[in-house]
């Protein structure tokens, strides 16, 4: 399916095929951008830059089966660039909630249930969030993730264990 769309776009410059191709990976691209950048505007910039780079350079992609890894790699690099430009510091949502939203009378667990996906994983570092999204939510293999993030598989396993520990301490055994 994906390879066929790439072929259609490369050979006939079929824009509808490119649209479809992007639609297939929307969720993951959006979640990785959101995991790495603190606001929607920055995430939008990173995504738009990624779409432009993909549109421009898709001819150079030799192996169409690796399109997803390729576009995620571009997105991560764009996110790093934007974060460096903005000198972005990621505000931990927990701190924000404790300081601004929840007062003593609020039931924290009930409040937590209403949080969005990103708010729930906001206590993790950007890279940890990316790993969590790719490994647990998208069901990617460790080898593929280590290739995308350009880290060794051993290092990745270590990071996965660290994430599990953090999740366990945050949400209890059933969520780890």
């Amino acid at each position: 399916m994906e390879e066929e769309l790439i072929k259609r776009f490369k050979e006939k410059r079929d824009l509808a095929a490119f649209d479809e191709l992007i639609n297939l990976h929307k969720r993951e691209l959006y979640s990785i951008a959101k995991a790495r950048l603190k606001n929607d505007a920055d995430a939008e910039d990173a995504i738009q830059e990624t779409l432009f780079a993909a549109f421009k350079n898709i001819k150079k992609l030799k192996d169409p089966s690796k399109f997803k890894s390729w576009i995620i790699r571009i997105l991560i690099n764009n996110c790093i660039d934007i974060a460096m430009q903005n000198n972005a510091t990621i505000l931990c949502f927990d701190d924000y909630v404790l300081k601004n939203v929840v007062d003593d009378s609020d039931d924290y667990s009930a409040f937590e249930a209403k949080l969005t996906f990103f708010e729930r994983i906001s206590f993790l570092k950007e890279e940890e969030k990316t790993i969590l999204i790719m490994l647990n939510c998208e069901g990617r293999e460790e080898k593929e993730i280590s290739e995308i993030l350009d880290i060794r598989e051993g290092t990745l396993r270590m990071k996965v264990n660290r994430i599990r520990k953090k999740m366990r301490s945050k949400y209890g055994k059933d969520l780890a």
Partner: protein
Amino acid sequence: MKDLIENYKNMKIPDYMFHIDYKAFKKRIFLGRFIVASIITIIIINCCMIFAQVNLQKDISELKVQISKIQE
């Protein structure tokens, strides 16, 4: 974790972020190529001018030698 993954799957994706303005993309690609082509052209013209200048100076020095010979 199941809860979290379900949360992820039910997450709403803002479509405006994925809106692709192909005209703008094509303009950007054209502009990029135009700038690169302009820079390359300027470099080539400069090289040609330097080459011509060197040749001209050689010719001038040869002419000077010839003039001095004739004067003698």
